[in-house]
């Protein structure tokens, strides 16, 4: 028994606010995940392949790491290796010192929570601001995230309303839109002023050295684009061999995490700002964090390294639903950065069975976590290994089963009984006798009211054991009667199951533009179709509707001929934004970019960075207008990943609708840090 854990459990169960927040989370998240997976033709096959990919990477991690580091370095990313938390923190501090940094803007990274990075940086006098809305809320409250995807899942809107009133001076409101706006305003200046941006990495791609960062609000793009230095933190296990593998994983990660086909922003980061690039950070650092992972890889818990941190197991877990993320505390009462089923394996695996092994016992082994896992990690099996002391504490090599002493004693006695039929029958006779006595005392009640300390008696009665066991009955009277039993005619049920033909993604080659339109609209974006000659008028129309007279725009090389001229003639001021003008660019309300491709399946567009193509044009304004050619609409993500420029651009971003959040009560709010409006204009000939 671990007292700190038990008291956290009791506190969670008694907290009505928390209970209703957790119920709402589980119900909503399970439903949206199921809906999202229904759009895949064969999710089980995808899952199988995803597990194969992760198995391959972890099996040959050294090779993939070497390849990844080589490519990332060639691309100009400064790669660091940290064996433990102290080393990782030291590297960040050294970079901060070199840069004379004062302000650090962070997008959500669980690795940094694992390292305790914020605290370490703050103690050195640095100002560190979390910019994911949920994470910002918990940081203002002085708390840790309670969920790896939705950090403020334990809070209701009233809690946030009170917090913002106290900390931001926002008049108390329960309007989530107003609260989100307040956070947007407060954080915009942080993005613009930050000396360093810190992000996590969802996946690293070995064949290209690409860092894939997935966010919805746009804060991930901000911290990886605006500050002059970007530091990416990544667990060494988060690699994928190829861009094809990334396409597969991206079909599973957002669906599992938030029920989206793709997150709003999927950034593919290749390099820092090049000599001719208009914006982007001058320096990109990547810190590859081991912190116990190599030891786990060599242990019987290796499979836990397949995890892609989607949080689906937390949402599916009936125990998480009851106790919430903050209850997953170690022996010392400090919560692990990783709660839920995944955390109950990761925490003891990385930080020791003695400290966190009890978490693995707080599971009914119902298997809902494994069922939800997009890479099919056998979480119940791993929880059982930890209970048995297998795989944990490799370095000390002394882990033992962690069953409470009284349970171990009871089961020890049971084992003595159950390893001999004679002793077993005797034990049954004793139990039966006890049952008869109890019945006698309870005047015939077939139920026993056990005391609460027994565990069972806390809320349940126990049936009185039979005076005569099955085996007794079978051998004395029952068997002879059965020999006479009549037989029924047997009916056969030849329902031969046909093997479904494997069709990974729904295949609809036609109507690509129409399907892209449907998906984009569902995400809250807008599509207009117009001939080349009318594009300027369409843009003007959008600007006039918002009373806007200036626009951030890409260089004319990347836009239709004479478009910028026509807009200028119409009185629109054209601004080419750069990394040096972010403070003023941030005031401009509209941005005009090209879109190199669109994906019908997900409603996404591909926006590339590089010379003449400032990233900030699609990031800073309220309204993002993107020009797309009809021939560039593709069916699937995997096809778009074949486009060579994705690998050459300093950063490529897949944009799926306007920026959004659901961090407060899972209520969808459009327009957080990135544009709140996305207008795609498809240019068609004739």
């Amino acid at each position, binding site marked *: 028994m671990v007292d700190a854990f038990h008291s956290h459990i009791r506190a969670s169960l008694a907290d009505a606010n928390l209970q209703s927040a957790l119920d709402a989370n589980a119900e909503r998240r399970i439903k949206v995940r199921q809906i999202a997976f229904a759009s895949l033709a064969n999710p089980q096959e995808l899952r199988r392949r995803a597990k194969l990919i992760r198995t391959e990477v972890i099996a040959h991690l050294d090779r993939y790491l070497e390849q990844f580091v080589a490519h990332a370095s060639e691309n100009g990313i400064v790669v660091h290796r940290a064996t433990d938390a102290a080393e990782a923190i030291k590297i960040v501090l050294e970079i901060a010192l070199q840069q004379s940094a004062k302000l650090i803007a962070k997008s959500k990274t669980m690795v940094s929570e694992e390292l305790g990075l914020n605290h370490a940086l703050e103690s050195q006098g640095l100002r560190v601001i979390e910019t994911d809305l949920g994470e910002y809320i918990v940081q203002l409250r002085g708390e840790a995230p309670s969920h790896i995807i939705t950090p403020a899942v334990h809070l209701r809107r009233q809690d946030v309303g009170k917090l913002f009133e106290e900390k931001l001076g926002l008049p108390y409101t329960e309007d989530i839109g107003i609260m989100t706006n307040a956070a947007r305003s407060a954080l915009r200046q942080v993005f613009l002023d930050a000396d360093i941006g810190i992000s996590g990495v969802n996946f690293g791609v070995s064949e290209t050295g690409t860092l894939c960062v997935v966010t919805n609000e746009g804060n991930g793009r901000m911290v990886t684009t605006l500050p002059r230095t970007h530091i990416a933190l990544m667990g060494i296990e988060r690699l994928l061999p190829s861009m094809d593998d990334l396409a597969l994983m991206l079909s599973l990660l957002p669906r599992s995490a938030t029920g989206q086909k793709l997150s709003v922003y999927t950034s593919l980061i290749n390099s820092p700002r090049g000599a001719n690039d208009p914006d982007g950070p001058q320096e990109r650092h990547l810190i590859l964090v081991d912190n116990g992972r190599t030891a786990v890889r060599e242990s019987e818990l290796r499979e836990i390294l397949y995890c892609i941190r989607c949080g689906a197991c937390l949402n599916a877990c009936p125990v998480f639903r009851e106790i919430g993320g903050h209850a997953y505390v170690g022996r010392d009462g400090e919560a692990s950065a990783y709660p839920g089923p995944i955390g109950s394996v990761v925490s003891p695996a990385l930080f020791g069975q003695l400290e966190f092994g009890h978490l693995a016992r707080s599971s009914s082994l119902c298997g809902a976590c494994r069922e939800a896992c997009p890479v099919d990690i056998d979480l119940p*099996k791993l929880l059982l290994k930890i*209970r048995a002391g297998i795989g944990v504490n490799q370095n000390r090599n002394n882990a033992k089963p962690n069953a409470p002493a009284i349970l171990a004693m009871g089961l020890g006695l*049971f084992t003595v009984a*159950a390893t001999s039929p004679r002793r077993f029958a005797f034990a049954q006779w004793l139990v039966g006798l006890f049952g008869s006595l109890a019945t006698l005392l309870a005047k015939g009640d077939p139920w026993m009211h056990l005391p609460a300390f027994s565990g069972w008696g*806390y809320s*349940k009665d126990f049936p009185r054991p039979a005076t005569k066991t099955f085996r007794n009955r*079978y051998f004395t009277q029952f068997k002879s009667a059965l020999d006479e*039993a009549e037989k*029924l005619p047997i009916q056969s049920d030849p329902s031969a199951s046909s093997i479904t033909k494997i069709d990974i993604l729904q295949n609809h080659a036609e109507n690509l533009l129409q399907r892209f339109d449907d998906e984009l609209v569902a995400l809250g974006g807008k599509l207009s179709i117009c001939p080349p000659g009318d594009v300027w008028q369409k843009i003007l129309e959008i600007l006039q509707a918002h009373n806007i007279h200036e626009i951030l725009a890409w260089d004319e090389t990347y836009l239709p001929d004479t478009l910028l001229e026509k807009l200028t003639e119409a009185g629109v001021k054209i601004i080419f934004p750069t990394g040096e003008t972010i403070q003023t660019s941030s005031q401009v309300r509209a941005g005009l970019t090209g879109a190199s491709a669109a994906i019908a399946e997900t409603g996404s567009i591909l926006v590339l960075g590089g010379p003449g193509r400032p990233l900030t044009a699609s990031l800073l304004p309220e309204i993002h207008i993107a020009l797309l050619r009809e021939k560039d609409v593709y069916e699937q993500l995997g096809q778009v990943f074949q486009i060579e420029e994705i690998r050459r651009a300093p950063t490529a971003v897949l944009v799926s609708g306007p920026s959004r959040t659901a961090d407060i009560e899972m209520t969808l709010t459009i327009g957080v840090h990135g544009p709140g409006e996305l207008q795609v204009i498809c240019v068609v000939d004739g």
Partner: protein
Amino acid sequence: MPSTVQLFVTCILDTLYPETGEAVVRVLERAGVKVSFPPEQTCCGQPAFNAGLRKQARKMAIQTIRAFEPYPGPVVVPSGSCAAMIRHSYAELFADDPNWLGRALTMAGRTYEFSEFLVDVLGVTDLGARFDGRLTYHSSCHLLRELGVDNQPRALLANVHDVDFVELPQTGECCGFGGVFSVEYPEISDAMLERKIASLETSGASMVVSCDSGCVTNINGGLHRKHKPQRAVHIAEILDKV
């Protein structure tokens, strides 16, 4: 078509619910097979395995393997989690023990859960059972997610005459039993059971059927303590009523 099956009645049915064990035998006999009861059987070892006590679990697993080895034919287990223990966890338990691994896998290969055996092996779905009332079905965790058995008990229940079958909301959600979990973390177990009971009340059924007597004990224990009129029942009890 096997003519004789070896019944592994499980320690819970043996000790707490002998009548259910008898119902299992009658149903199997009605479906056309002879039932034999290897007398050396005790417990599959799951409680110790789930507690992390593998040494003890191995001893009980060896006892079980030995108990059934002399008797040919399929082993039928009226419990999803005990069947899953033998089918999946014995391999894990003896992974490093080549002497026993083969024997454990042989045992796993001939073990079936009760409803699975009736439908998939015997091809029986209508046992002529009759139940006049409203029933619902709780999909037990290990049966559903480890053995993938769900259509089989549903097919058996659908063919019960006169029955008014209703779906249990969130039927695949754990009832909060989890063996040692329910005594180590009784508060969480209770909260999970509360949700199961609420689902049962929503369904309007007076009885919830399960293929696992662990779930039956857990759900009934809570229903009785909380003075609820509904009851959980093992599927064999329903199929036994003609």
